[in-house]
């Protein structure tokens, strides 16, 4: 994961990109918590909304793995399913941690 080239892909300087990533980490954590809450509360609608939000933000920044995992979860939610994506959830968590470590 190279912030400089990810930033360049978007026409942004590295420091500008990092500033946005900081915001992303913040909102992504909130989305992640909402996803978990949606699972706990058996709420597919909430699951769709929170994973959709995470998908969009991650996709725009070029964090495509996170975006793909979130998309997988969103699709499950649209089918009314609220399980079967433990793998994706732990993958998202791991990758968010990695990003967090990199920007500190």
């Amino acid at each position, binding site marked *: 994961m190279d912030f400089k080239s990810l930033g360049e892909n978007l026409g942004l300087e590295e420091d500008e990109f990092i500033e946005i990533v900081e915001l992303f980490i913040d909102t992504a954590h909130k989305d992640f918590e909402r996803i978990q809450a949606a699972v706990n509360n058996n709420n597919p609608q909430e699951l769709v*909304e929170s994973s959709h939000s995470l998908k969009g933000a991650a996709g725009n920044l070029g964090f495509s793995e996170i975006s793909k995992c979130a998309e997988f979860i969103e699709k499950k939610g649209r089918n009314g399913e609220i399980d079967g994506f433990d793998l994706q959830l732990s993958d998202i968590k791991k990758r968010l941690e990695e990003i967090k470590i990199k920007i500190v």
Partner: protein
Amino acid sequence: MNNEKKLSILIVDDNPTNVMIIKTTLTKEGYQIYTALNGPDARKIANDKKPDLILLDIKMPGEDGFEVIKKLKNDGATSSITVIFLTGVSEIDSKLEGFELGAVDYITKPFHPLEVLARVRLHLKLSIATNSLIANQASKLKQITDAQTSLLIKPEEIPDAVFGVYYHALNEAGGDFYEVMTISEDIHGYFVADFSGHDISTSYLTSSVKALLKQNCSLIYKPEESIKMVNDVLHEILPAGKYLTACYVRLNRKSKSMTIINSGHPPVCYIPVNGEARVIEQEGDVVGIFKDVVFGKETIKVEKGDRFFMYTDGLIESSKDKIVWTEGAKMMLDACVKLNDVDIDKAPKEISRYLTNEFQDLDDDIVVIGIEI
């Protein structure tokens, strides 16, 4: 648009990261940026700050992008702000709805900030060009000195437009005006207007309006955009307090659809071959007084043989008999239905005669146009 002022853009998305990506890119390019994370905030900022352009996310919790644009377009203060939608690939089906509601373009998510920048630039250019076109038209029209009042078109000059007309002016500088235009093969524009007051400047204004219609009623503009352009120029050149009420119909005989734009004018009477005759009630601002206007707009499907009538209030209003629009429009509709067997080229005159006999004597100008599909 003031060149001294920074061009400003409002970014609306419930996802702060998306807002930030766009904000960073556009700020670098020198734009003044406002942001909102939900619909109601977006509308408030749009109203307070009057941004030049709005980037609007469709999918937001609570008030979504469609709801926001509807409200923006229905509010005179914000109706002319350019709106570009941000949409996920899965929402592509809703594109048409967005265009219908007045968006000028779409950006699909995930977006590239430089694509956003390119589209923002393009649409700001277009809106600046439109605004300078208006300023240009206004200054040219001011130079028109020779009044050309006898420019009212006759049905035999455009037989394809299939219309009949009755025009009666109380004095030479009549306050009523009509125009019929060929916009393209099978598409015609019909315009009826009534200027406030009957003073001498009306005749000069008539030729101005005629020129403006010619310039702005083209295929590249939607009917409501055409009248908005006419409004924006007239707003510049009309003497204070002077305005016109108008009704503009764009009829496409090929697609069998008709769009009616109404600005404070008596309602169109519609007499379909099948179905019940009706008055097409619409509300809209008058033309020429305000910079920001909202007109009544309705599009209906029509069939061959259907008729509709546009007219000015001289026919249905009488200061002596204290008859007002709502009542008058019904009388007009009755007359149109009763005289539906009369050929369309003679119908307007017959209808006028029928109605004015009931009103006894006239105290205003009259225009009636009847159109058959």
